[in-house]
């Protein structure tokens, strides 16, 4: 695709109990003693009023929260729901929840946990929250691969299958976590960076 037709119009980074949006530190949580608690505090800080959040596993909570922050700064209102794509990736797929579910199997297998034993459920949760109905894919990699994320998002934006694409990295394993989400749109807005693998990587490392 012609790279100059798509721009990174927003990004959200969540790591080390800090939430950044477009490079600015929005919030840091000094009090949380666990990932679970941090995510709950983040929900109270940035959202609230979405009871389904509390049923989610940590991967979905993290992705949901990152999308919430991202879309508050870069709302997807100019796009048809069918034209908003999601391309997400991580290292551990849903293994964090897989172990929890498997522990329940010895006793009574929990359907509430089983449903979260697929990494793409977080895509479903974000789509339900924001009404997105477009293309999507979940990839698994051993690290954030800017070139791969770029290539897969560019296929969708370049072919017209999507006019906006939320892409990036969402990893949870035990207490280790990291979320880096980008909003990429086929429109230029002030302060937006051209959509390139280099720019994805720079933001990831910032």
């Amino acid at each position, binding site marked *: 695709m012609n790279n100059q037709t798509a721009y990174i119009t927003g990004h959200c980074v969540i790591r080390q109990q800090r939430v950044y949006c477009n490079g600015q530190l929005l919030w840091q949580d000094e009090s949380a003693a666990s990932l679970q608690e941090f995510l709950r505090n983040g929900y109270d800080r940035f959202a609230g009023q979405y009871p389904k959040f509390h049923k989610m596993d940590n991967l979905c909570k993290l992705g949901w929260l990152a999308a919430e922050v991202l879309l508050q700064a870069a709302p997807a209102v100019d796009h048809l729901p069918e034209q908003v794509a999601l391309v997400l990736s991580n290292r551990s797929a849903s293994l964090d929840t897989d172990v929890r579910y*498997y522990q329940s199997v010895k006793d009574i297998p929990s359907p509430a946990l089983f449903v979260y034993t697929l990494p*793409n459920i977080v895509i479903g949760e974000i789509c339900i929250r924001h009404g997105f109905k477009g*293309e999507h894919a979940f990839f698994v990699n051993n690290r954030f691969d800017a070139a791969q994320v770029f290539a897969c998002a560019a296929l969708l934006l370049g072919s017209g299958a999507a006019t906006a694409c939320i892409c990036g990295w969402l990893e949870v394993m035990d207490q280790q976590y990291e979320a880096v989400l980008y909003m990429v749109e086929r429109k230029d807005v002030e302060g937006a960076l051209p959509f390139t693998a280099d720019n994805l990587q720079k933001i990831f490392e910032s």
Partner: protein
Amino acid sequence: MSNVYVIADNIVSPLGVSAAANFAAVTGGHSGIRLHDNTRLSPAPFYAALLSSEQLQAYSAAAGLQGYTKFEQLLILSVSDALFQSGIDISSPRTAFLVSTTKGNIELLEQQPDEPRVTEQMELMVTARKVADHFHYTGTPLVISNACISGLLAILTAQRLIASGRYDHAVVTGADVVTQFVLSGFQSFQAVSPEPCRPFDADRKGVTLGEGAGTVILSNRKDLAPEGAAMVRAGSVSNDANHISGPSRTGAELGMAMRLAMLNSGLTPEDIGFVSAHGTATLYNDEMEAKALHLAGLQDTPVTSLKGYYGHTLGAAGLIEAIIGIRALQQQVLIPTSGFAQLGVSMPVKVIKELEQRPMQHYLKTVSGFGGCNAAVVFSLNA
């Protein structure tokens, strides 16, 4: 945009270890589904389409694969056969390697029952890398884990990567294994049928699980395509944005994916010879699919589900079923829906009951899965 040809294929399943053997079994009316009494997998007897361990061990020993897990053995056996037929160079930087699965090596969790812990081998990229290394593939495999649409999504992603010029060839493989993990999960949802599954039937009682692997090798090189090879045309993916474990109430999103797949292939519903549906035989899935078929204008098009032959093979389903569909297209034959007797969906659809010859040029493969995902892809004969 170049054409994308299916230049080789393979299926490893209870019905055989080549695509040809599998197609012969399916058209001969054979199902891989049996009643199993295996307390390692389930406290009570259950129906499933399982590979016999003796058979798999024999094939793996012959290929020197004892050091690999069952999941990896399935992938390697499947890729080896397809690669052998294709004549492409897998180590070329112009070849993509895609792996689709839902649970990969999750059975390793079951091998440490006292205190299950995550090990590196359960990471999907680690196992994909191991398989890629077996074939001396040096690039980074593209691993897709997107519930039950994974296999078809992998084919579609490979088609797009080749059509856009990024690669010339792609090895697209996928597998899943029936484990206590997955079976107990579907049982906890009360979703497992007490008899072999009956897609679209009035008396359907849920899914039957299956295991296996499928591989297609795609290429933009027409000269590498055998006579009568099929092409992967356009496809589309959509999300219901409705519920994480229940399908859309209207079928609108799957219907949209079907419409876009046809539209972007330059086709109308009249051009489609048959639809190979997801047809899991749960009450809600088949109902949703019937609605989607109507919304896409496919209410008069013959529809089949292959779940009665293979069970639901999860991350391999899109691959295995696409391959059988391609062969049905090439042989100009409609494949009956095993287990189906009487229509049990609110919007009437033309479920195929008998093997029948029919001239046709195109077919549509669809899949849907947890997380509200749907995918549809058109396959055509090389005109």
